[in-house]
């Protein structure tokens, strides 16, 4: 028989998970749709299931030593309303569907789902966010780009779960998050662009770029960013074609029912160009 568990604490949950394999359900906004059966019949959870959305020991957000620390089941609507949440993350959450969805959706679920179109993911990449993953007897902190391996694949083992997400607070003078989708609310990204720079006295001290939904995972290339750090804004702008060429090979979108690949590629590169030209 399939087991359903509503644990009372994180340690109780991890204890169950150390003995048997469980599917974690948090806000359920991905899973309830993926497992959806016909109207009026229960969703098809054909495996043991553990429900963690109401675990109080994961429901928190705090600012500590220049970092934002977000408990795994803290809903994105509240993350958006927290005053120290980085502006880019607020922007990405604001255009995630509607309040009735944002009250359930979690960042840990966005990571766990590991869709290249997950809207909070490029923001996590740009901030070099860390993910704390725990099991009954272990705890490890893994950079976001090592947590997500491919489409729907993460490094999280069967007895582990995400406990919290750690986002360093960084200094940017200009940021941009643009999501291209079908409808304003409730649209899955066709492609998204995230850009952030720190310019001091006309010099580009830091530049970070990420693309969503154009490859199997979010595209962020530190090698390319490093090439252009230390230039003046004008120098950077004069090398725009070189920058576009550097990114071009990594923008490998697919064609699906939502959009075709040439459109996605062109839009992604145009967004990058616009960001650099408007610095």
């Amino acid at each position, binding site marked *: 028989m399939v087991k*359903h568990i*509503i644990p009372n604490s994180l340690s109780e949950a991890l204890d169950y998970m150390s003995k048997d394999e469980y599917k974690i*359900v948090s*806000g*359920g*906004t991905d899973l*309830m*749709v993926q497992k*959806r059966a016909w*109207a*009026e*019949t*229960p*969703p098809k*959870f054909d495996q043991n*299931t553990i*429900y963690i*959305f*109401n675990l109080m020991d994961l429901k928190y957000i705090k600012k500590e030593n220049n970092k934002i620390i977000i408990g795994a089941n803290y809903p994105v*609507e509240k993350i958006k309303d927290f005053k120290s949440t980085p502006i880019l993350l607020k922007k990405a959450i604001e255009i995630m*569907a*509607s*309040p*009735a*969805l944002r*009250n*359930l959706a979690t960042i840990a679920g966005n990571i766990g789902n590991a869709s290249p179109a997950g809207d909070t993911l490029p923001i996590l990449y740009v901030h070099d966010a860390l993910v704390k993953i725990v099991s009954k007897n272990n705890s490890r902190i893994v950079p976001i780009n090592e947590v997500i391996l491919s489409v729907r694949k993460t490094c999280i083992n069967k007895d582990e779960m995400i406990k919290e997400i750690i986002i360093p607070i960084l200094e940017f003078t200009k940021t941009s998050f643009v999501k291209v989708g079908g409808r*304003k*609310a*409730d649209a899955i990204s066709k492609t998204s662009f995230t850009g952030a720079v720190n310019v001091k006295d006309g010099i580009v001290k830091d530049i970070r770029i990420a693309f969503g939904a154009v490859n199997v995972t979010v595209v962020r290339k530190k090698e390319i960013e490093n090439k252009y750090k230390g230039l003046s804004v004008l120098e950077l702008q004069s090398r725009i074609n070189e920058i576009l060429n550097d990114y071009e090979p990594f923008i490998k979108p697919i064609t699906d029912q939502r959009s075709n690949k040439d459109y996605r590629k062109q839009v992604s590169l145009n967004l990058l160009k616009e960001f650099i030209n408007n610095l």
Partner: protein
Amino acid sequence: MMKIKFELNNKEYVFNEDPSKRLLDILRNNFSLTGIKEGCGEGECGACAVLINGELINSCLVPLANVHNKKIMTIEGLSETKRGKLIKDSFSKAGAVQCGFCTPGMMMATEALLNKTAHPTVDEIKIGLSGNLCRCTGYNMIIEAVLLASKEGEGLW
């Protein structure tokens, strides 16, 4: 099967059920609360919206397990309150109801919005109702209805 406990429209219930069932189906089938509708069944239309601990949530996305020990309010419960009655009146006065399929969800979204922001701007109303689709009215009358409720309900929220 598991023992599930919740408060629904101010009454406590304890019962045995499959915790993976959708809250939407439980409310309609076990409790005969048919005000909430299944529009899309995937979180996009808001016809199934309820308040869970005061927050607007699409019940088609909620496994029963996630409302264990929670407080749920449906349109049937809201309609009994002063605020609910006022929202209902505002919707009829503003001509915001045609076929009525979206109306329960729209009213729940209105209550959730006014609870947070008693005097919302038109933009705030658009954000508050952004998850609720209406195929009949073209939305303008619904926005009017929310403005009217906010004005006439001075002091209620």
